[in-house]
């Protein structure tokens, strides 16, 4: 039987839902404000930016939904008694888990690809096609290895961090510093995720640093939206 995607130590099951939910909220908030800006300005870049953060939120929701069946206590209880029934339940749970995680990874890669294209102001269709080609390749490989997924995200985060660093050096504002810092934290979180297969607690570290990254983004958005 194929394996389910389970992340980190058992004591962390469920806690990561809360962490990921924060990312969902931040993703939706940025998406909403960017869409509102698009309605005001009619500039497509805000619509694409909104789409990318909306997809980030969708990816986290998919991940949460995909891990519920394999984390759930009901499943563990049922394995004690009815062996055959449990086996069927587990099979279904594993299938749902694998499907959900694959969707989550694909959506996350598409989300950050859109963000990269917007951040780098790429308009040349040939370059966009090349990016999409690399995305398809990495997505195909993602089904075989989580490392490829996190490595792809690591590179994307690295480029985004450098881009936001340049923006901060140009603007020198506190908010652009917060955005740069948040992408630095997201970059560091991906380093932990790449090595989570070696050390179980790296998943906890990765999730914690990622949470800090999204909280920094939330703080930046709060400052922008509450500006008088």
């Amino acid at each position, binding site marked *: 039987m194929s394996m389910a995607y389970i992340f980190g130590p058992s004591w962390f099951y469920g806690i990561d839902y809360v962490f990921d939910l924060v990312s969902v909220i931040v993703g939706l908030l940025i998406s909403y*404000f*960017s869409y509102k*800006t698009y309605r*005001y*300005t009619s500039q497509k*870049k*805000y619509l694409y*930016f909104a789409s990318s953060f909306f997809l980030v939120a969708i990816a986290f929701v998919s991940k949460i939904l995909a891990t519920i069946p394999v984390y759930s206590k009901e499943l563990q209880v049922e394995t004690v008694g009815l062996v055959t029934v449990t086996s069927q339940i587990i099979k279904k749970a594993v299938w749902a888990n694998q499907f959900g995680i694959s969707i989550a990874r694909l959506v996350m890669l598409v989300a950050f690809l859109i963000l990269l294209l*917007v*951040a780098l102001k790429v308009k040349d269709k040939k370059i966009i096609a090349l990016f999409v080609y690399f995305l398809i390749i990495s997505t195909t490989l993602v089904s075989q290895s989580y490392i490829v997924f996190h490595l792809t995200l690591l590179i994307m985060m690295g480029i985004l961090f450098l*881009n*936001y660093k*340049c*923006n901060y050096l*140009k*603007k020198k*504002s506190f*908010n*652009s510093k*917060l*955005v740069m810092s948040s992408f630095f934290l997201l970059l560091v979180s991906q380093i932990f995720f790449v090595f989570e297969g070696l050390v179980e607690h790296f998943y906890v570290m990765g999730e914690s640093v990622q949470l800090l990254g999204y909280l920094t983004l939330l703080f*930046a958005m709060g*400052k*922008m*939206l509450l*500006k*008088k």
Partner: protein
Amino acid sequence: MGVRRTKIEIIYDILTAIQKKGGRIKPTHLLYKSNLSYKKMLEYVGELMSKDMVGEEEEKGKKMYTLTDKGANYIQEFKKIKEFSDSFGL
């Protein structure tokens, strides 16, 4: 040569010009402050009046443009949009 302003930046400049004059401004002052041709200024003001962001009043027989609540809200929204856009380098 300065950077060409976008439409929303021009609208912001018009509205803040009125706001800085206490919410009412003479057309000649607005022409000077908005840095537009007379024809363009009338086009923009016409559009802003149709969207209820700017009003028109007579004061001692002279025409004055006034800032409405909707116009004042736009200024606030624009500040947020500008901050958002600058922070993400959009």
